[in-house]
């Protein structure tokens, strides 16, 4: 049975996150290509967003007017989004094994043309998803004037894209308190540690100077994440940014905090070990 979007306890959310991680490994090993590190590291964020009572959605009516939306600006992290959506009942879990195959709705980067329930936008060219989310939040708050909220997740390396800061500026300019961005802050990108490739710190001061409400939390701790999303929801007059510190590859010892795992799948043997570790 799919999990529901009612508020689960942190303990239950930990269990859900483990299931999401197992599904990520299962889909990647069959796909034989794709990204492991980011999806595993951010599974707790997704569990809380979708199964922690944070977002208002209906998996049986994914296009329901007035729903909350989630945009994965870091499109390459889609294995975690697909696994979460399947566990939330948007589409069959068996479909996760079609990831990256010809004719699959689970494209290598989310493609809206495949009409996969729960996918609000094509993403994959970094930075652009955040601007799309700002547009949706603008539409909800200032055009439709409804209560819907828009969530967007970016990587930390992604913050190097200049257009990110154009999006951030516009969200603050319009006081989009229905907009909440999450930075998956694992300090890893393909070429190495983020501060070595192109330093993005200090992050909190940057977002504060753009007039964002900034919340820092342990992104691998479901209780802290629940509190962070509550705080974002309660914030009025300005958009929120949750800087969620995570470990790339979290939950699988040999991938943990290793940027080398950004963009590759586990082999069959590695997947076996990973699934054992994940229980």
């Amino acid at each position, binding site marked *: *049975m799919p999990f529901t979007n009612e508020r689960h306890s942190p303990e239950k959310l930990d269990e859900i996150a483990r299931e999401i991680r197992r599904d990520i490994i299962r889909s990647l090993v069959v*796909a034989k*290509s*794709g990204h492991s590190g980011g999806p595993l590291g951010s599974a707790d964020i997704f569990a809380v967003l979708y199964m922690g009572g944070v977002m208002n959605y209906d998996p049986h009516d994914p296009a329901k007017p007035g729903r909350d939306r989630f945009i994965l600006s870091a*499109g390459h992290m889609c294995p975690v989004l697909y696994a979460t959506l399947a566990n939330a009942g948007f*589409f*069959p*879990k*068996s*479909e996760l094994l*079609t990831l*990256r*195959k*010809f*004719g*699959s*709705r*689970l*494209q*290598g*980067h989310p*493609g809206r*043309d*495949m*009409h996969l329930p729960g996918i609000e936008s*094509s*993403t*994959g*060219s*970094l*930075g652009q998803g955040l601007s799309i989310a700002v547009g949706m939040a603008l539409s909800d708050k200032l055009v439709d004037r409804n209560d819907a909220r828009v969530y967007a997740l970016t990587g930390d*390396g*992604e913050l*190097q*894209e*200049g*257009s990110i800061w154009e999006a951030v500026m516009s969200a603050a300019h319009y006081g989009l308190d229905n907009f909440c961005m999450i930075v998956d802050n694992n300090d890893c*990108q*393909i*070429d190495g540690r983020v501060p*070595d*490739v*192109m330093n993005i710190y200090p992050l909190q001061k940057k977002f504060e100077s753009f007039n964002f409400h900034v919340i820092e939390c342990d992104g691998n701790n479901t209780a802290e994440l629940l509190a962070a999303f509550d705080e974002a929801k309660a914030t009025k007059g300005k958009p929120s940014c949750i800087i969620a510190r995570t470990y790339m590859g979290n939950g699988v010892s040999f991938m943990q905090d290793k940027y080398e795992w950004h963009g590759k799948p586990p082999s069959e043997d590695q997947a076996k070990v990973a699934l054992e570790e994940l229980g």
Partner: protein
Amino acid sequence: MTTYGSKATRFGFGEGLAELGAQDERIVVLGGDITGSVLTSLFKEKFPDRFFSMGIAEQNATTVAAGLALSGKVPFFASYGAFCALRNADQLRISVCYNEANVKIGGGHSGISVGPDGATHQILEDIALLHALPHMTLVVPCDYLEAKKATIAIGQMIGPAYIRFGRESTPMFTTEETPFRLGKGEVFRQGNDLAIIACGPMVWEALVAADELAKEGIQARVINIHTIKPLDEEIIAEAARECGAIVTAEEAQIIGGFGSAVAQAVVKNHPVPMEFVGVTDTFGGSGTPTELMKAFGLTSGDIYNSAKKVLMRRSGQWNGFQRMTEVGMEGQHPQNYPKPGVVFPIEELIEADRQAAAEQTA
């Protein structure tokens, strides 16, 4: 021509760039995070002092490259073509081309053959955009060795240039002796019945198709056009005059792409019937490179079919609008591959889930 193994054109770029770095101290390289994928890592290892990591910020990297060029450096910036041809289009147009800045862009992972990454990462429109930019030189090498020669050549010329290369291994068939001159096409196979004009790895597919056609007594001339801009109009006009029918082949959008560029040269000099092999106004998708090349009609078989069509048009047997069956030709390589779109049986997957859930409760 025959193959002697296969290797991706991106290695030609990376190795050529490292060689260029040893020749010329003005060469500097900007990294866009995926340096291992586009092989600028080879330059980085040899010349760490002339390598600058710019992070995931193609718009900025392109503009910084223009500044370096205006200060007398010869900067190379490489990324996936999806992000260093279109994402930074305005920067290329204004800061690079309008400035006539000596910037070299390496567009990697081009075409549909990138495979499972899907549409967002499969650049098909770079040829259309880049050959429209004034001052831009656009090179699409056909194999590993030509990519190496082309990289060195654009590093030695003055002015903005873009080189397009791929991720997947493709046949190697040119040799050290094969002539390479920027702006000059080369006849790789003689023939006067029709001409197949191709760029990139599609040149090999064209040679394979020509061998198939030769079995039926049809001698196709195969022309390799590695420089799409400036285009060798002479070799194209000559082919039009002497062969009387032309097929183009590219791993990119036909609209505004290589086929369109060749068509302009043909129409201007000596109009003859033409057919086009390439991507037909659609986005890519996930799949293996082989699956995708078939599904999007980019194989030697597709070139063969187009050759038969163009010959029928020239002889008045086919007006170009009828179905092939109506004129008694099904095409020896029927294009009955699955077309892009969802092919997985969703209902069956739902049923599988139901059964799994039932087993769990039982």
